C-alpha cells in the first residue's frame, strides 16, 4: 500500500446535498481527497456513489454545500472547468466512441491539450500537424503503459468488455489528470482482468503521482488498493477511514448486512 505522507488536500466537499425533486440522492456529505492518495467510495446500491462523482466533475449541481478544488472554493463545478483543471473520469457503463479505433478514442482524451483551431486541424499542416504528432506520441506511451498495442487500430465496439474498460482508462490518462475519477472500473470483470486493472490503477498512482478516487463494489479490491475509504448509505456518509477501520465499523456492517428494526 502506498503511504503518501503529503497530507495536502486536493479536493474537499463540504455538506453536499443533492436532490432530484423529492429524492434525496446526497444529504450533507463531507469528505476530502488528499494529494497522491487512492480514495475509495463504497456503499450499497443506490447509496449515491455515482452521484457524488458526478458532483465532483460538475455533471450534477448540488443544491447545497461547496466544493474546494486546488484551493478554489465554489458552490458547484462546471464540467469544462473540471476538465481543464485536470479532473478526468471513466464511466460505469463505458462511454466510448464505438465506431472509432482505440487510438482515436484515446486521442480524444488529449482534446484539452490541443490548442490549434478547427481550420488548422482540418488542413493538417504545419503547427497543427506538429501538435498532433506530439499528442500522438503521448498517446502511444499510454497505449504502451496499458499494454494494448494489439488493439491499437481495432474499432472499440468490437472489443471485449474488459478491454473497453482499459481503453476508457487510457482516454482518461491521456488527459494527464491530476485527479482521476473511476466509476466501478472492475464491474463485470473476471479475476484476471481485475488483477490487471488493479495493477494499472496502482501503477498510475505510483508512477505519475495521480490522485485517484474510485467507486468499487469488489471489497477485496477496495481493501487492497485504497489508502482511505468513505462509506455512503442512503445518501449519507456513515463511515470514513482506512480500510481496516471501515471494515470494523458497525454502521458499515449494518449497511451491508442489514439490521433488524425491532
Amino acid at each position: 500500500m502506498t503511504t503518501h505522507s503529503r497530507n495536502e488536500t486536493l479536493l474537499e466537499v463540504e455538506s453536499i446535498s443533492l436532490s432530484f425533486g423529492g429524492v434525496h440522492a446526497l444529504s450533507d456529505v463531507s469528505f476530502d481527497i488528499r494529494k497522491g492518495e487512492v480514495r475509495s467510495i463504497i456503499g450499497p446500491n443506490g447509496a449515491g456513489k455515482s452521484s457524488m462523482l458526478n458532483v465532483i466533475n460538475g455533471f450534477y449541481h448540488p443544491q447545497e454545500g461547496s466544493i474546494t478544488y486546488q484551493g478554489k472554493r465554489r458552490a458547484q463545478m462546471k464540467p469544462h472547468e473540471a476538465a481543464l483543471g485536470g479532473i478526468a473520469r471513466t464511466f460505469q457503463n463505458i462511454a466510448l466512441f464505438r465506431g472509432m479505433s482505440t487510438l482515436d478514442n484515446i486521442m480524444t482524451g488529449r482534446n484539452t491539450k490541443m490548442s490549434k483551431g478547427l481550420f488548422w486541424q482540418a488542413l493538417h499542416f504545419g503547427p497543427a500537424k506538429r501538435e498532433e504528432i506530439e499528442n500522438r506520441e503521448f498517446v502511444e506511451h499510454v497505449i504502451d503503459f496499458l499494454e494494448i498495442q494489439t488493439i491499437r487500430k481495432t474499432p472499440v465496439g468490437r472489443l471485449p468488455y474488459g478491454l473497453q474498460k482499459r481503453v476508457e482508462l487510457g482516454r482518461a490518462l491521456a488527459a494527464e489528470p491530476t485527479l482521476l475519477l473511476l466509476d466501478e472500473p472492475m464491474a463485470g470483470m473476471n479475476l484476471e482482468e481485475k488483477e490487471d486493472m488493479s495493477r494499472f490503477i496502482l501503477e498510475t498512482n505510483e508512477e505519475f503521482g495521480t490522485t485517484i478516487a474510485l467507486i468499487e463494489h469488489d471489497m477485496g479490491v477496495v481493501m487492497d488498493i485504497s489508502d482511505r475509504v468513505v462509506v455512503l448509505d442512503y445518501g449519507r456518509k456513515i463511515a470514513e477511514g482506512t480500510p481496516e477501520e471501515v471494515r470494523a465499523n458497525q454502521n458499515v456492517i449494518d449497511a451491508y448486512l442489514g439490521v433488524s428494526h425491532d
Partner: protein
Amino acid sequence: MSGSSESEAGTFPRLLRIRREKDGATPAMREKAFGIWQTWSLDEFCDEAFFFASGLMHLGMSRGDTLVIIGDNRPRLYASMLAAQSIGGIPVPAYQDSIAKEIEYVVDHAEARFIVAENQEQVDKALEIREQCPRVEKIIYCDPKGLRKYDQDVVIDMRHIVALGRDLLQSDPDRVNIEIDKGLSSDTAVILYTSGTTGRPKGVVLSNENLLVTARNTSAFDKVTADEEVLAYLPMAWVGDNAFSFAMGLVVGFCVNCPENASTVAQDLREIGPTYYFAPPRVFENVLTSVMIRMKDAGSFKRTLFNHFMKVAKKSGARLLDGQKVSVISRLHYQIGELLIYGPIKNSLGLNRVRVAYTAGEAIGPEIFEFYRSLGVNLKQLYGQTEATVFITMQPDGAVRSESVGTPPPGVEIRIEDSGEVLYRSPGVFQKYFKNPEATAETKTSDRWVRTGDAGYFDDEGHLRIIDRAKDVGKLNDDSMFAPKFLENKLKFYPEIQEAVTFGDGRDFVTAFINIDLDAVANWAERNNVAYASYQELAANPKVYDLIQDCVEKVNRSISKDAYLATSQIRRFLVLHKELDPDDGELTRTRKVRRRIVNERYSDLIEALFDGRQRCFVSTEVMFEDGRQGKIEANLEIRDVDVGSLEARAVA
C-alpha cells in the same frame, strides 16, 4: 589484429567491427515501439553492444563468464549477446515464457553471475530464483516500467550500465577492442538449452565458427542478400532464431525486425512483409484455418471466386513455382487469380514479398504445405536440430516435396545406420553438451558424427525422408522397416481419424487401432442420415467402418509406391469403442500415445487383429471425469483391407 576482411573475421564481435567500417549507417535492426518502427543503424547497434560490454567489464564480468538473457526479441537483447561475446563471455538465452523453476535450472547449470531481463515480468522470475542461485550478482533490465521500487543494488537499468561503459571507453578507448582481439573462432558463441522431452535440458555449446560457417553456407544456398527483410519473432533461446536472425543477419547484413510484442506479430508481419521467413507448421496451419473461416463468412460471390481460383492454383501454382511447364492458357488463368485472389490473400497475411519461407520442427500436413505453394509462396521444409546449428537438410528451389525434407546443404554429410538412424557431420556440429560429457559421448562420435535419434532414408530422388524416432522403429518378420509414427501421422491427416495406433514390430504384417474424430464423423453422420446415440454406437456403425476403410486404403495406396515402406501397408484394422484418454493413461498429457500401456490394456484386441478373427469382445475399465470407475464393453468388428501390390521392389 587478425582477420581484416569479413570472411576472415573469426568471431561475431570482430565481424561487426569490420562491417561497421563500411556500412555503419545501414539499418541493422528495427523494433516497433510506441507504434513506430524505430531503426537502429549498425553504428548505433555497435555502440550499444560495445558500451554495454565495457559496462559489463566494470561489473566484473570476465572471460568465460555466462550471461543469461531472458526476454522477447529486442535489439537491446541481441546487442547484449554481442556485448558478452566481445569480452569473451558466453550468452545463454533462455526461453522467455519459462517458469521460474525452468530458468533456475538454466541459471544454475550455466553458473551465471549476471542476468539480462527484458522487463518486470522477467526480473521477477530472476529475483525469485536468487535464493537457489546465490551466484547471481546483478540483474540488468531493459524496460524500467514498474521497476522503480526494486532494490537498485541488485536490479539495475541497462541504460545506466551502457552510459557507464561509454564513459569508461572515453578514458580508455581500447578496453573492449583488446578483449575482442583475444577472441578465437573456436570460442563458444552461445549455449542453447534444448527443451528436452525426457530428463533435464541439455546445454548445447556452439562456437563462433559453427554459427559463422553455417550462416555463410546457408545464405549461399538460398542466395540470401543484404536486402532481405526478416521478422525475428521466434524465441531467442531457440537455435533457429540464432541462426536466422542473429548469425545470418550479421553475416549477410540484412535488417532484422523485432515485433512490438508477442501478440502483435501478425500485424507486424503485414507491415514488414518479410522476404525470408520461418515459421513452425503450427503457425501455417492456424493462418490457413483463419483464412478458411473468413472465406466461409464471406459473401457467395467472393466465395465462388475463391473456390474457383483455388482449384486453378492447385492445378498450376506449385508447378509454376517449381519452374515446370505450364500451358499459356493456364498461366493466364493463374495470373488472373493472382490479381483477384492470391495477391490480396498473401498481402493480408504479410506473405506477398516472401522469397523463401521455411517450416520445420514437425511434419506439416501435405494439404497445408501445398496450399501455400499453390498461392505462390515459396514454402520449403528443412530438417535440423540445435546440435547441428539448425541445418541438416534443406529443400533446394525447384525440388520441393511435401513428404521429404530435402538434401544436405554444402558442407553437410549424412549417413544412415542399419537401424535406420540418421547421422550427420557438418561445420555446424556442436562442440559439446555443457558440463555433460556422458550425453556428449552418447550423441557425438569421436569422428564428429552426430546421432539425430531420428530414423529415415533417402528416396529415389536423393531426398531425405524422416519417418519416426529411431527408438520407435521396428521390423516386420520379413526384416523390412516398420515405422509406426509415420503410418499413424498419415492416417491422422484425415479429419475423420482422431488417433491411430499401429502394430507390426515382430509380426508378419501391419494392423491398426483407429479412434474416430467425433466432431468430424458426427458432422458426416448428420449429412448422411446415420443415427447414433453414443460415441460407441457411432464408432461401431458399419458405415463409419466403410468411411475409415476408405482412409486406410488411401494410405495403403500412397505407401505402396514406396520402396521402403510398401510392406507396412495396413492389412487389418478396428475402430476402438472408446477414445484413448490421458485420464486412463493411454495418452500422455500432450496427447502422445503410450504404446506400452495400450499394448497391455488391449492385448486381446491386438491378438485378434493378427489371428484372423472377424469380431472380438472387449471389456475396458475406464475412469469417468468425476473420478468414478466404470466398465465399457463391446464386441468389435475387425475389417480386412485391400493391399496394393507389393511392387516387388524388395528392400535391401
